[in-house]
């Protein structure tokens, strides 16, 4: 009898501990969001989002070019990374035990562990030093290199979750392998794939080192992809370590914009998945 009571108490205690841990994690997130919001909201308004930075001592000034630079580099990086990542994941899912699959999986795991600075240095050496030119394009490529392993690994996990019975049923009905992959496995796994992609996008949007090493920075509008470009993380880094209070305030504002954008992207993607799953 006593042992049953003890078991139950231990059970409750452990449950409580887990709940506490979960709440603590939530609390940390909320505190960060709250703090960024409180410090940053004063700086954010429409001109802040649409105008160029001003030099020290001039009032006003915004993050328009950094916003566009980040959007273009993360967007282009995603366009490069998503097809590579998803295709690789399909290969891994279809040939899970081949030697190439094992090697690919291993390489991707190693790549996710490589500090972003090293990836930046790699693209700097291969592209920037060769061409002698910092560019938004090089920034996109650096971000794509960072995103590919994250998308590949998460996509493989998601594809693997599609039950074997479904695949067998599809093949039994006479569907080709191509039809099975494109019309059954990919649609069934879309929700998970989007989550993986969003994770990669969020990570890429917040990178400072790889972007600074490849796209450098700018205080003017981006006119073509072959130019150095401003980006939100680099702007935050530069402004936050400056001695000027108005720049520091703008750094908080830019941080708020960055975090909010990623949050909105994530929430929209989740809502999209919910709506889509209901339709299925």
């Amino acid at each position, binding site marked *: 009898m006593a042992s049953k009571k003890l078991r139950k108490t231990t059970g409750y205690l452990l449950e409580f501990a887990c709940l506490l841990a979960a709440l603590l994690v939530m609390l940390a997130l909320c505190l960060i969001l709250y703090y960024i919001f409180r410090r940053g909201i004063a700086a954010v308004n*429409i*001109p802040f989002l*649409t*105008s*160029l*930075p*001003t*030099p*020290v*001592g*001039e*009032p*006003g000034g915004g993050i328009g070019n950094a916003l566009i630079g980040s959007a273009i580099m993360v967007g282009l990086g995603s366009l490069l990374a998503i097809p590579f990542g998803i295709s690789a994941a399909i290969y891994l899912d279809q040939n899970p035990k081949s030697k190439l699959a094992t090697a690919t999986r291993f390489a991707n795991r190693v790549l996710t562990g490589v500090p972003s600075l090293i990836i930046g240095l790699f693209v700097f050496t291969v592209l*920037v*030093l060769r061409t*002698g*030119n*910092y560019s938004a394009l090089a920034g996109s490529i650096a971000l794509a290199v960072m995103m590919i392993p994250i998308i590949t690994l998460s996509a493989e996990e998601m594809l693997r979750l599609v039950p074997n019975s479904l695949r067998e049923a599809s093949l039994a009905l006479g569907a080709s392998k191509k039809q099975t992959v494109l019309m059954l496995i990919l649609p069934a796994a879309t929700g998970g794939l989007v989550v993986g992609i969003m994770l990669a996008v969020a990570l890429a949007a917040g990178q400072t080192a790889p972007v*600074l090493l490849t796209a*450098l*920075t*700018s*205080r*003017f509008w981006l*006119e073509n992809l072959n*130019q*150095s470009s401003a980006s939100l993380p680099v702007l935050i880094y*530069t402004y*936050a*370590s*400056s*001695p*000027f*209070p108005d720049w*520091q305030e703008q750094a908080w504002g830019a941080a708020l914009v960055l975090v909010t954008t990623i949050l909105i992207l994530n929430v*929209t993607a989740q*809502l*999209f998945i919910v*709506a889509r799953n*209901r*339709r299925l």
Partner: protein
Amino acid sequence: MMNKKTTFSRIFTVLISLAILVSLLPTAVFAQTRRPISIEFDGRGVTGDVSPIIVGGRTLVPMRIIFETLGADLNWDSPTRTVSGHKAGRVINLVIGSRTATIDGRSVALEQPAQISRGRTLVPLRFVGEALGARVEWDSARAIVHISSTDASRRRTPVDRALRLTTGGASFPFPLYTRLVTEYRRITEPAVTIDYASVGSGAGIRGILARTFDFAGTDAPLTDEQMAQVAPNQLLHIPTVMGAVAVTYNVSGVGNGLRLTPDVLADIYLGVIVKWNDTRITAINPGVQLPDQRITVVRRSDSSGTTFIFTDYLSEVSERWQREVGKATSVRWPGTTVGAHGNAGVAAQVSQLPGAIGYVELSTAIASKLNMAQLRNRAGHFIAPTVDATSTAAAGLVQEMPKDMRTSLVNSPGAGAYPIVGLTWILVYRDQTDLAKARAIVDFLRWAVVERNLEPFAADLFYAPLPEGVITRVRQQLQTINHNGQAILR
């Protein structure tokens, strides 16, 4: 059943899309109707207590702002409700609510009359600006009115097509360079855009050596080993401004102006003097109550030109420092120290840690409202860091300046000289490979340094301008810059 579910999900999707649309709507509406208008005069923002407004496609601004900005005398005659401005013999009159204005007695039709709004008199910007000899441009995308005091005569045409230069390096002059590149872009036609990244002197030097930068900023001159990586006399050191490094501290009960001697400062950083009430500090500060508090030594954790200037000074005044630590953009610090990133990082540490001492560039120390020490200079006077004391330090050393201008300004002999002073340089190749870029670089440096256009900006940010003798040397250096043997500057 299935049908019902599909209908529901369709409604749901539509609702979500609507919600997203609606959330975007107010911003778009807001942007169209109530976009604040800002005014820039010669590239600098002008602010007033009332914002400009747009009426019938014309911008109206508070009269006081526009007249004062353009340097005109202003008269307000309340019985006739007439605004009159006088500048250089020209008189303009505007009557509130009247569509007719006069310039030197001649009538001019106005599209929008002057008016009174919220107790402020608003006048049509373009009419007043152009009547007073300024050039008024409207940037509708950014809602900015640009007013330039003198127009065509200040325009420069260094190149025949728009050009972008990629540069970077020292963070110390970065605030100044942000102003210079913005102003230079504004006055060049076609525009020359210069991107300067604040990545530190070390990265700047690597960038110019790898030729990824068109020019680079550095606070530390190239070492002989670095100079050996390029052909002799190939990399020019063009000084732009000078700056002081302030020694700041946070000691309870001690205000601004604590006195320090070179040996005391060196021994604090060497870890020999560890308490604020050490007899060697109290002896030079009679009347100051120094507490029995440990000294926390703060230094830069990143590679930094400020560290170079500071350690250059300590090496100059302390043999032991020179032997054991030396001078560099980052050094192996003796004793127990606290590292901080950037000038702002050191300033933040010093203001947060009781008993802390740290070195930051002057503008940071002033912006962070830190206490600054007076240092005993070579002439034996205790001198506080100021722009004047920085200029004085340079004046004493112009004669000794080597031909390549790789020189140190620390521990200057002048009576009023502040001892921890450094130059900041722009590194540029003498033999240029791209003619258009070469023209843009040379014209920018001539405009900024030789024609002294950086000086008003520099003064605002506590940098000291170069003495006359050095500027002459800069002009000579610029004359050696060439493309295929053809000098760029004639």
